[in-house]
């Protein structure tokens, strides 16, 4: 990473499920139209994904179901262990590949430098503890052990995501899907992380709520200037949020570029299909 403004750099990230054979590489991918190696049955979820994410930039990931979008963000968030490749985080362990760090260190990086918003609030929130406690959990992961400060910060974050103060000590399971999603956003932002990962944040919400959540994300991003990786199958969301976009198919990047460019002048046949089917 020579460029000072690069926050995250990924090099040849790969993720497979299965035994792997020599033919996996040539017999899967967008040209073959499959992720599954016909010889050994290995699922090649991701192959050779490389990208750089700059400070304050929003990177979009689009692609159909099973193209590897969520797998990629889960590998970056250390929910999954990538089987291949390297990941660098600015200011982290002297430019070491963070994917090879011990789990205890990965946990520290995740707690302090990253936030994640999952498609399904059940993955990102615990429903049996209060909304405030969900946000507090992220702060406690970063060793903030001052009760009054935790409480104040959680209140402030929930207010900034438009959760009424009265719901701070309510359980997320009694709140609406849109509210749960906003609590997840508050939790993800708790430690002011330089990187926030958004995995299909608006997919489960109705259209009016979608618009409000997207506005909120845009506003918060403008205020705080963090970098984001936004996963969506919806070109509308990508158009609204992302500066640059990667188009994924069968675990590979088939096209990359400025979002406007991809939307106006898609090059790869799959991107063309994607753009035309949604516009």
């Amino acid at each position, binding site marked *: 990473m020579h460029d000072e403004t690069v926050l995250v750099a990924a090099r040849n990230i790969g993720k497979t499920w299965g035994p792997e054979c020599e033919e996996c590489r040539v017999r899967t991918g967008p040209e073959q139209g499959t992720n599954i190696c016909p010889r050994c049955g290995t699922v090649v979820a991701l192959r050779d994904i490389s990208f750089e994410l700059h400070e304050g930039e929003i990177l979009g990931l689009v692609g159909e179901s099973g193209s590897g979008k969520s797998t990629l963000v889960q590998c970056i968030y250390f929910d999954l262990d990538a089987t291949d490749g390297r990941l660098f985080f600015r200011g982290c362990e002297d430019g070491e590949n963070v994917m090879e760090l011990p789990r*205890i260190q990965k946990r520290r990086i995740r707690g302090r430098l990253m936030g994640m918003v999952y498609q399904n609030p059940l993955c990102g929130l615990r429903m049996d*503890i*209060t909304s*405030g*406690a969900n946000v*507090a959990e992220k702060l*406690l992961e970063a060793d903030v052990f*001052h*009760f009054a400060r*935790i409480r104040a910060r959680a209140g402030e974050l929930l207010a900034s995501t438009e959760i009424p103060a009265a719901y701070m000590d309510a359980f997320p399971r009694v709140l609406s899907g849109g509210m749960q999603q906003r609590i997840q956003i508050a939790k993800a932002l708790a430690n002011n992380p330089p990187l926030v990962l958004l995995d299909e944040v608006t997919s489960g919400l109705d259209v009016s709520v979608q618009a409000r959540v997207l506005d909120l994300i845009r506003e918060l991003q403008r205020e705080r200037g963090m970098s984001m990786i936004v996963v969506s199958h919806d070109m509308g969301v990508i158009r609204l949020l992302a500066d640059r976009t990667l188009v994924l198919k069968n675990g590979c990047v088939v096209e990359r570029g400025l979002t406007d460019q991809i939307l106006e002048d898609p090059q790869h046949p799959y991107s063309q299909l994607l753009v035309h089917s949604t516009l």
Partner: protein
Amino acid sequence: MTLQDLLPARGFQYNFAFIDEGAKREVRRALLKAVALPGHQVPFASPELPIARGWGTGGLQVTMSLIGPNDVLKIIDQGCDGSVNAVNLRKLLVATTGVRTTFDSREATLMQSRHRLPEIPMTEGQIAVLQVPLPEPLRLVEPSEVETRRMHAEGDYARMWVSLYEDVVQNGSVSLSWGYPCRVNDSYIMSPSPLPRWDLHMLHQAEHLTLLGAGREKRVYAVPPHTSVRPLEFDDLPFTVENFAGLSCVRCGSTDTFLDEIYDEETGKSFRVCSDSGYCDLVREGKIRVRSAAHA
């Protein structure tokens, strides 16, 4: 048939301290590992036992695997030498080893206890064996054993802290009265058996060795001497112990001990006595003077 009938020539049909030497070695191996990794729970293979699991069998196996003919044994149940669990375990150990027993904690080389430490801090060379019902402090926040082991390995204790946060939100302070989670040697979080908060300072940088045994779960863990044991506390909400201000023991008059509340059914009135009966007796007999208030 009693155990005495089964032991005609004392000790030749049953091994010394009941369990066989192989079983003792297995427990000792686990204990060595536990001492080397303070606060870490070490599983062990447990033999058949003469009493039901959950009735002090964890502590009992630790005691049985360590006791020698020259040991002086003290056994207490909630601080009391005469309580039923203590009496039964003492009878079993005396019948199978013939060791000398004592009520004076200062004389004991080996002290097995259910849920209390003696009021007089133990010293170098003494071993405290604690009976533990629930060894896993994270069990309340995570039901899966695989997951709690991972959490210990990664120092992933945010959820333990969240449970304290929720407690403070609901009750204004941490309401746990026993089994208060402690960080041992700045590493693992440990459940200090169900000791009351009052006793926790006696584990911190102690002179003596503390061994904790869970019979149902077949696990041991340890706090070696001179090891830090710190109750979890928020920076702005310091850990506090039980408050007995203005109360004193009706037997010995102590004002600086952990007091049990006892109801008199006839008068309906309540009074307090020292939980540590051995200490209370020593004060009554004038063998020790009442300490200056350690917890004041």
